[in-house]
């Protein structure tokens, strides 16, 4: 991987971030007046004016835009309207909960999805393949909120074995993790299967067989690393979903994370907090995409070398 490759990717990531941040800025200012919500309809005009000035909402829009970027650059994303604390602090406080849930579900979907996809590919068109893929389609098409509610019904209401809300213990994590990880596992399984099948049909796999390469090595050394190239992309994109993906699940299980904070903050029009969350999500997405590009260059020599050739 050379410097030029890295620079191009970095520039592209920064440009994406700029566009997304602008979008956040515009959309949030189009979506209604936060001050009205804060002080109520009946508030006297001078109170409204006071708050407008306090949050900088009385300045010209372009100035607000510049201040907005200055703030982001300094890690200052405004003050939460609701509890008068630094908006970023409010969000970061919730972040560990979301990351804990997100990473565990992510691991769950990887550990379930990829092996299932590979097993299905290796047993193509057998009952095992059909069963696995049926399960994958089911897992990936069932909506989060529905699966969450069904799980609560089954394990909390009927069996009375798992708590339905909160984050106190490992037991609290099981249902949210399954809810959040199932869709990922389903789509990864389907993806791993098709990518593996494509590689297994290549002549070099047949050539390896003709050479007498044992089956395990054919799969592990020739097929898997090649099949991994497109899978890595999907995994990377999922990583970007780590924070944004859990909104519904956190709400269903009353999980005290960023997702639920987003829902409550939107409800109370806490502009600064919503903005901070959106910016955080945008950054994780952009960084995940950047990581995908780098990992891609690392696992696939075709990409690495072709960008090296561009240089001369």
């Amino acid at each position, binding site marked *: 991987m050379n410097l030029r490759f890295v620079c191009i990717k970095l520039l592209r990531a920064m440009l994406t971030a700029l566009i997304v941040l602008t979008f956040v800025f515009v959309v949030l200012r189009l979506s209604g007046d936060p001050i009205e919500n804060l002080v109520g309809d009946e508030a006297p005009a001078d109170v409204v004016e006071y708050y407008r000035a306090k949050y900088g909402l009385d300045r010209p829009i372009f100035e607000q835009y510049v201040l907005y970027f200055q703030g982001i650059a300094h890690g200052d994303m405004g003050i939460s309207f609701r509890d008068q604390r630094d908006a970023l602090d409010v969000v970061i406080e919730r972040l560990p909960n979301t990351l804990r849930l997100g990473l565990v579900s992510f691991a769950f979907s990887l550990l379930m999805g990829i092996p299932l996809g590979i097993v299905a590919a290796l047993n193509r*068109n057998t009952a095992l393949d059909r069963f696995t893929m049926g399960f994958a389609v089911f897992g990936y098409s069932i909506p989060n909120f529905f699966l969450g509610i069904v799980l609560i019904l089954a394990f909390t209401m009927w069996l009375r074995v798992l708590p339905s809300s909160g984050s106190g213990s490992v037991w609290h994590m099981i249902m949210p993790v399954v809810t959040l990880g199932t869709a990922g596992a389903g789509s990864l399984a389907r993806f791993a299967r098709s990518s593996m099948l494509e590689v297994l049909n290549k002549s070099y796999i047949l050539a390896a067989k*003709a*050479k*007498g*390469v044992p089956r395990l090595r054919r799969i592990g050394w020739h097929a898997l690393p090649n099949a991994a190239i497109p899978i890595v992309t999907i995994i990377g994109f999922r990583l970007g979903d780590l924070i944004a993906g859990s909104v519904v699940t956190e709400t269903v299980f009353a999980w005290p994370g960023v997702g639920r904070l987003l829902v409550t903050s939107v409800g109370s029009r806490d502009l600064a907090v919503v903005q901070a969350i959106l910016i955080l999500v945008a950054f994780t997405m952009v960084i995940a995409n950047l990581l995908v590009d780098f990992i891609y260059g690392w696992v696939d*020599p*075709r990409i690495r070398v072709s960008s090296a050739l561009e240089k001369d």
Partner: protein
Amino acid sequence: MSGAAAAAVPLLEVRDLVRHFRIGARTPFGKRATVRAVDGVSFQLDAGETLGLVGESGCGKSTTGRLALGIDRPTSGDVRFEGRPLEGLSVEAWRRLRCDMQMVFQDPYGALDPRIPVAEQIREPLDIHGVGTAVERKARVDEMLEAVRLPRPLRERYPHELSGGQQQRVVIARALVLRPKLLVCDEPVSALDVSVQAQVVNLLASLQKRLALAYLFISHDLKIVRHICQRVAVMYLGEVVETADRRDLFDGPIHPYSQSLISAIPVPDPSARRERILLKGDPPSPIDVPTGCRFHTRCPFAEAVCTERKPALRAFGPRRLAACHFAERWAS
């Protein structure tokens, strides 16, 4: 096997080889269709000889090649290598046999692992079979690269950095590094540019002389077959319809299908007048093969008997077989 007995046993003998594929999903309604890719193929190949296997696409040439190598298993029939059947070999024996028979593929890029530098891919068979020390293996890879005339600086490159011709040289080097006795070449040049085709064919010919290789040369390009093969088997819809020495086949094909193939070879003389036998339509589907002689639906000479009775392969001379009811008309 030793001495005189060994001389009588062909290197590769294929007898009544059948390979059917079932296609489509199993449903409660009716049976799955069966593709008769290879349907009773027999031939022999001696050490150091080249047998061309020709026919239209979809006639079962490639499947026959894979069956001969033992990397696909026949529905019935058997393949013998130096007199020993491939079926029923122990895993160990099968793996040892890999050193004796190798394959060259149609699409050289698809035949190389895109993630691994080429020298390493050529070395892999040696690693697998535990041939020699690390130094010896490296020497052998170098020797192979030289034999296929691949410039040294290219050895650490990845497959996509090579041209098609260079990739095919790598595939050939990888196939030959174990010093096999038999090389199955499945359309080895049809994916290459014409100018490169000649280089690769000449390379194969010179390697054969040097290393006493036997080739099973699968191709639909009769010009190349004529150039490189001593004997030719013509396949149609999963069956061999004629086998003959090259000269006999090209000078006087017996089977009407062979006649039409040979009349289709372009002649580099615009004033030459010749009769072309044009076949009507496409070959029938191997799922639903015609009764009697499989060629009767397209044969310009077909008569009633052809639709009813299947012609057997009959001998016309010591090394010549043809399957046509009216073969005597053309055999002279």
